[in-house]
């Protein structure tokens, strides 16, 4: 019973991180019709920046309540940095290609993936970076007879807050209305006086922020390593294919499905754990091309 609770918590923790990445990917696709292959790399970059910032400010061996709060406050720097990167990339590299076939944008983001992968290696070195002191500092809580890291519960809370916040932002704010109008009909939005160029930068930066946030919250629990972005991207793809490209609810449900299947897979069928996920994505795409929550 205790194991079941812990495995469920693990799944939800994992779903929270996956949701942050996938929601950003989905938002960018929904508004701009761009499939960003560098999105997973943004997630990895966010993890590296946050871990580096925490280490640079506090050193490896700071303890105590005040230091812990300080570290937690520094953690989102990764997300902000990635948002800034996104705000630079969209107008310089992507905007010139909007008139051309969509293959070109896909290729530029693939080139970006390769570039950023090496930039990370260049800047942060090849060794894993971690902000484990946060995880250690927060201790663990007792669930039945087992211990569970308290930090994971914070990640779950951040996931839930982000989901609600993003929903309110898109469906209840003025900016959200403009965003949705732009995504439905770019020309009409432009004719009504909306500055589409600015909306695109903002949407892309928000999407990147989500990826960076995913990296920032995961890094106290798992060290940032080279190659984590490439793996994460494919799982985020699986999530938004299952949920529906461009759908926020879809990203949430997809993230939950993927993480519960994955947790069960690691427990019961470890050999085909990943294959099952890709097959689920393929089957969903076959039966409902727009995903569970997508609209055509």
């Amino acid at each position, binding site marked *: 019973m205790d194991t079941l609770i812990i495995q469920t918590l693990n799944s939800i923790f994992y779903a929270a991180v996956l949701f942050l990445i996938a929601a950003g990917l989905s938002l960018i696709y929904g508004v701009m019709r761009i499939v960003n292959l560098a999105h997973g790399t943004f997630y990895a970059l966010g993890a590296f920046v946050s871990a580096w910032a925490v280490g640079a400010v506090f050193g490896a061996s700071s303890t105590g309540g005040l230091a812990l709060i300080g570290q937690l406050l520094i953690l989102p720097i990764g997300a902000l940095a990635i948002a800034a990167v996104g705000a630079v990339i969209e107008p310089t590299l992507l905007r010139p290609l909007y008139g051309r076939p969509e*293959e070109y944008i896909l290729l*530029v983001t693939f*080139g970006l993936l390769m*570039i950023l992968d090496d930039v990370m290696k260049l800047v942060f070195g090849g060794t894993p970076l971690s902000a484990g002191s946060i995880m250690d500092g927060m201790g663990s809580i007792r669930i039945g007879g087992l211990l569970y890291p308290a930090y994971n519960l914070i990640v779950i809370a951040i996931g839930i807050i982000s989901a609600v916040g993003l929903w309110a932002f898109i469906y209840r704010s003025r900016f959200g209305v403009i965003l949705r109008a732009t995504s439905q009909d770019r020309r009409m939005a432009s004719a009504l006086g909306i500055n589409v160029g600015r909306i695109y930068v903002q949407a892309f930066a928000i999407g990147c922020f989500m990826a960076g946030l995913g990296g920032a919250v995961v890094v106290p629990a798992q060290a940032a390593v080279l190659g984590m972005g490439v793996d994460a991207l494919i799982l985020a793809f699986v999530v938004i294919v299952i949920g529906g490209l461009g759908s926020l609810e879809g990203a949430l449900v997809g993230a939950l499905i993927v993480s519960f299947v994955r947790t069960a897979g690691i427990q019961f069928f470890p050999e085909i754990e990943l294959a099952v996920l890709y097959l689920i994505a*393929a089957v969903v795409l076959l039966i409902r*091309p727009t995903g569970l929550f997508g609209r055509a």
Partner: protein
Amino acid sequence: MSQISRSAPSIPMLLAIGIPIIIALGFLPRFIGLYQTELLIYGFTFAIAALGFNLLLGYTGLLSFGHSAYFGMGAYTVAFIVRDLHVQSMELCILGGVLASLVISAIFGYVCVRHTRIFFSILALALSQVLWSLAFKFFWITGGTDGIRVPRNRITLVGGLFDFTGSGAYQRFVYSYYYYVLVIFLIAVVIMWIIVHSPFGKALQAIRDNEVRAGFVGVPVQRFRWLAFVISGTFTGLAGALWVPLNGLTTPDILYWPFSGEIVFMTVLGGFRNFAGPIIGAISFNYLKVYAVAGSQYWQLVLGSVLVVLVMLMPTGIVGTLGRIARMLRRG
């Protein structure tokens, strides 16, 4: 309209260009040495893969981000045949690799061609990653990340006429394998040329340009897309089969999706609206990658920058850009 349909050179003209190139390629290993010869063989195998890939991208208008699956299928099948069936004949290995990639691309293609555009790309990618994860996880069959070794001395060419044991085996292997791959490469080029200039190839281009109209004039759109997919995957599988003995090892890396990205890269580098584009692109990409890897540990940075600059400034690739320069020179 694209360049493909505008200019179909006549057969005498093709022979006039092709025969000197073939003769030059035949004598090349005498002048460039062992290492360069080896690099060129890699270039030829990738060229076959890119040629197959471009039947989908350039001629049918479908961007597959999952062609690593068919390359890997060809490679792993050869490795299994050599290791488990103890077959020595390379011809039988190739036959096995080609058949296996034909079967898997027929199955995957049947699923993928139900969609177009980005959905097609993602579906192809998702299915290719099924194979990758199986190769990665079933390590007692596939060797996991260690992969499977395919030792050179376990292989014979042309029905046992050439074997590679004893002294100087490596040199003999490279020089004879060069001609072996060159001949298969030329056959593949001729077959692909015939396919794209056949009525079937024209129908594919019609589907690419306007699938609704193509349907109206009686082209079975979905079935032709499927056929193009199968041919494309089989060519890429042939490339994987030829690649394995040269590399001596097959690992899950060639099934992982960034390798699919490299195949796309090769094709775009050469120019995908052009028959020769993927060939030039694959050979150039191979040199580019080898020298970038040798020159810097940040080779991905080099390759990524080349790709970004290419897409922004030279979207028609090497061949397309050279063609444009040639036309400008002729006019002015």
